[in-house]
């Protein structure tokens, strides 16, 4: 399996953990971020068949997502971040995933 696809699995698994933790939280207005992540989880699944994910170009884009998801999940586990800091980390995740989703829409080629 390509490194991009390996990273994609890590991103999806990481997002699922984040979603689970956010659902357990009481207080804090993170409902919008939760909704966005739930939508993105579905879109990330859809990337598994994309040619882009088999290429070397997928590695840096997915690595960024893996790192940002990990930072959020560490923050949620440690419960030390204030709501604003947590919100920022969640926005970093969704921004990174948006970049990945955009790059994965590789333009196709017509040969004739």
């Amino acid at each position, binding site marked *: 399996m*390509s490194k991009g696809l390996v990273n994609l699995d890590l991103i999806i698994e990481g997002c699922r953990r984040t979603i689970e933790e956010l659902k357990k939280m009481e207080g804090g207005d993170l409902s919008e971020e939760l909704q966005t992540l739930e939508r993105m989880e579905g879109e990330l699944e859809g990337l598994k068949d994309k*040619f882009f994910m*088999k290429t070397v*170009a997928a590695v840096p884009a997915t690595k960024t997502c893996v790192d940002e998801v990990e930072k959020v999940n560490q923050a949620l586990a440690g419960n030390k971040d204030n709501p604003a800091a947590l919100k920022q980390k969640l926005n970093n995740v969704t921004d990174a995933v948006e970049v990945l989703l955009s790059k994965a829409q*590789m*333009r196709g*080629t*017509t040969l*004739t």
Partner: protein
Amino acid sequence: MNTEPLVLITGGGGSLGAELTLLLSGMGRKVRVFDLPGLDYDLLEETAGIEVFPGDITDRASLSEAAADVDSVIHLAALLPPATEEDWTRTEAVNVGGTGSLLDAVRQRNSEAHFIFSSSVAAYGDTTDENEPLTVEREFRPNDFYSRSKALAEKLVVESGLPYTVLRISGIAIPAFLEPPAVWPFMRDQRMEFVCRGDVVAALFHSVGNGEARGRVFNVAGGPTWQMLGHQYVEALFELMGVLPEEARYMDQPGWFDWYQTSDSQAALDFQQTSFQDFLIMVKKAVEELLG
């Protein structure tokens, strides 16, 4: 009334057509681009000397208007695979009927207009029984809708009475980071010889106003450095993209690619400027730019 030589390019809104349009315009030619409404014409419309004429190749009335005052025509507009294989009626209407209507429109406006037609090596059909690079004398044996449409359209051009140049263009390789076809249009070990898009543009460009090219048919393919087997091309490209060779899917029946005799074409049109290695370097650069 227009007194400057005017080139009409059908399909000029596509990637090949737009590049050719900008090149011709940059060299001082007046160009009229004819292509479907709704395309992004911003760059062309902003460029001096380029007129955009939205229209449909199956609409005789708009073709008649588009053909007014033209001295040369470069006919690129066509339906391409895989769309061609879904509907022969539509393919015939656009690729054959559209070519016929355009020829009629041009003949009525200027019977001396030079008609340059982008035909295709597809018209040769399955040539796996050949042992030598194909010359333009090789008979047509079209084996799908697209190849049949190109063979028929080319015949119309040659028999039109207009001064013509026919370019039988091979598969076009674009030096960019692009998603390849889900199934490559050749068998794994089939002979194939693509050509870089810039070289196709050069061949078309050098056909305009070229007396040596009038009344002739040319193979347009990359040349000896591009002659290889299908899997060799794919594996070279995939290596640059970091994709495993086993991800490639090939046809299980012959496609219509082969190796081509292009020395006559090169002598007349001087278009083979990009070797296969040059092409790979450009793709590598595109991948590196993406990686930052």
